[in-house]
C-alpha cells in the first residue's frame, strides 16, 4: 500500500507545522483547486471580465497553499482549496455571462445595421425612381423645346429673307422690310401675306407664347420720321396677325427707329440689314 507510506511521509514533512497533517482528501481538493484556478486564470476573458472573482479565488488558493506548506489544519487547507475551486468556477461563469451579453449586443447591432441597410436600399431605389420620373419629364420638356426650334427653323425656310436666331430673349425672327413694305410706306405688300400666314399659324399652334414685334430703320432721314415709320410698320404687322385671329394681347408692337443697328449704315448692304422687323418669340 502506498497510502500509509505517503501519509507518513507527509506527516514527517509537516510535523514541524501545527495542528494536523495534510489528508489525501485535502491534497486532492488542493490539486483540483490549482487546476481549476489555472484554467480560469489562463482565460483572457476571465482576466478581463471577472478579475475580482479571480482575485478572491487566488487569495483562497494562496491561503490553502500556505496552510499546506506550514502544516496547517487539513480542514482549513481543504476549506480554502474548496473556496478557490468554487470561486474559479464562478469567475469562469461570470466571463461567459459577459461574453454572451457582448455577443447579444453584437448580434443586435448587426441586425440593426442590416435593417438600416435595407431601409437605405429602399430609399435609394425610391430616389432612383423619382430621378427617372424627373428625367422623363425633362425629356418631355426638351422634346417640346426641340419641337419649337424645329418649327422656327421651318418658319425660317418657308419665309424668304428671314433669319432666325436663338437668344436670351427667346427666338428672334428677322424679316427684311423689302419683303414686307414698299420703301417709305407702312402698307404690307401682297408678297408678305404668305409670311404672315405662316407666322399666324405658328402662333395658333403655340398659344402659350407671346411675341413682340419690333420695327427698325436705317439712319437715312430724320430720326423722328424713322421712329414713327418703325412704329407704324410694327403696328401693321400686328394688325395683320390680329386680322388672322391672333389675340391682340399676345402681341406687343414697338418701333425703335434707327436705334440698335445690326450693321453699318455707311453702306447700302448694311442699311438694308438695318431696315427690318424683328419678331421676338418669348420663352414660355
Amino acid at each position, binding site marked *: 500500500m502506498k497510502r500509509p507510506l505517503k501519509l507518513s511521509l507527509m506527516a514527517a514533512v509537516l510535523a514541524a507545522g501545527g*495542528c494536523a497533517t495534510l489528508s489525501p482528501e485535502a491534497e486532492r481538493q488542493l490539486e483540483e483547486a490549482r487546476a481549476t484556478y489555472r484554467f480560469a486564470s489562463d482565460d483572457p476573458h476571465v482576466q478581463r471580465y471577472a478579475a475580482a472573482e479571480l482575485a478572491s479565488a487566488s487569495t483562497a488558493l494562496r491561503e490553502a497553499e500556505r496552510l499546506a506548506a506550514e502544516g496547517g489544519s487539513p480542514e*482549513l487547507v481543504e476549506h480554502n482549496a*474548496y473556496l478557490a475551486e468554487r470561486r474559479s*468556477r464562478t469567475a469562469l*461563469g461570470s466571463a461567459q455571462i459577459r461574453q454572451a451579453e457582448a455577443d*447579444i449586443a453584437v448580434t443586435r447591432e448587426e441586425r440593426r445595421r442590416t435593417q438600416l441597410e435595407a431601409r437605405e436600399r429602399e430609399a435609394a431605389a425610391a430616389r432612383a425612381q423619382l430621378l427617372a420620373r424627373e428625367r422623363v419629364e425633362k425629356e418631355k420638356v426638351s422634346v417640346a423645346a426641340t419641337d419649337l426650334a424645329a418649327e422656327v427653323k421651318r418658319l425660317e425656310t418657308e419665309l424668304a429673307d428671314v433669319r432666325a436666331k436663338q437668344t436670351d430673349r427667346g427666338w428672334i425672327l428677322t424679316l427684311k422690310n423689302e419683303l414686307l413694305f414698299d420703301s417709305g410706306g407702312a402698307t404690307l405688300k401682297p408678297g408678305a401675306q404668305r409670311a404672315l400666314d405662316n407666322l399666324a399659324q405658328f402662333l395658333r399652334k403655340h398659344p402659350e407664347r407671346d411675341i413682340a414685334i419690333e420695327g427698325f430703320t436705317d439712319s437715312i432721314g430724320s430720326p423722328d420720321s424713322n421712329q414713327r415709320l418703325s412704329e407704324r410698320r410694327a403696328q401693321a404687322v400686328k394688325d395683320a396677325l390680329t386680322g388672322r385671329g391672333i389675340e391682340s394681347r399676345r402681341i406687343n408692337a414697338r418701333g425703335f427707329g434707327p436705334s440698335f443697328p445690326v450693321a453699318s449704315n455707311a453702306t447700302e448692304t448694311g442699311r438694308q440689314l438695318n431696315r427690318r422687323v424683328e419678331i421676338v418669340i418669348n420663352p414660355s
Partner: protein
Amino acid sequence: MKRLALFFLPLAACATTEPPVSEMAAARQMVAQARAIAAQDAAQDLATAQSKLAHAEAAMQREQYEHARLLAQQAEADAKLAWTNAEKLQAQRALREERSGR
C-alpha cells in the same frame, strides 16, 4: 460527497470564539439571491448552498462558531456559483434567441 465533507468536521483546533456574523449574513444574502433564479438551471449547487447554510445556522445555534464560519463561506461560494451558472445559461439562451432572429 466531497462538498459535504465539512459537515462532519470536528471543531477546528484553533477556532475563533467570535460569532461569524458577517459571513452568515453574506451567505444568507447570496443564497436568497441564487434561489430567485437558480432553482432550475443550477439546482444542485443551489441545494448544496442551502444545505450548508442550514448547517451553518445550526452550528450558530450550538455556538460552534468556527464551524459555522467555514460552512457559511462555502454556502456563499456555492450560492454564488449557482447564481452565476443560472445567469450564464439564461444569457446563452437569450443569445440563441437573438441569433435565431426572433
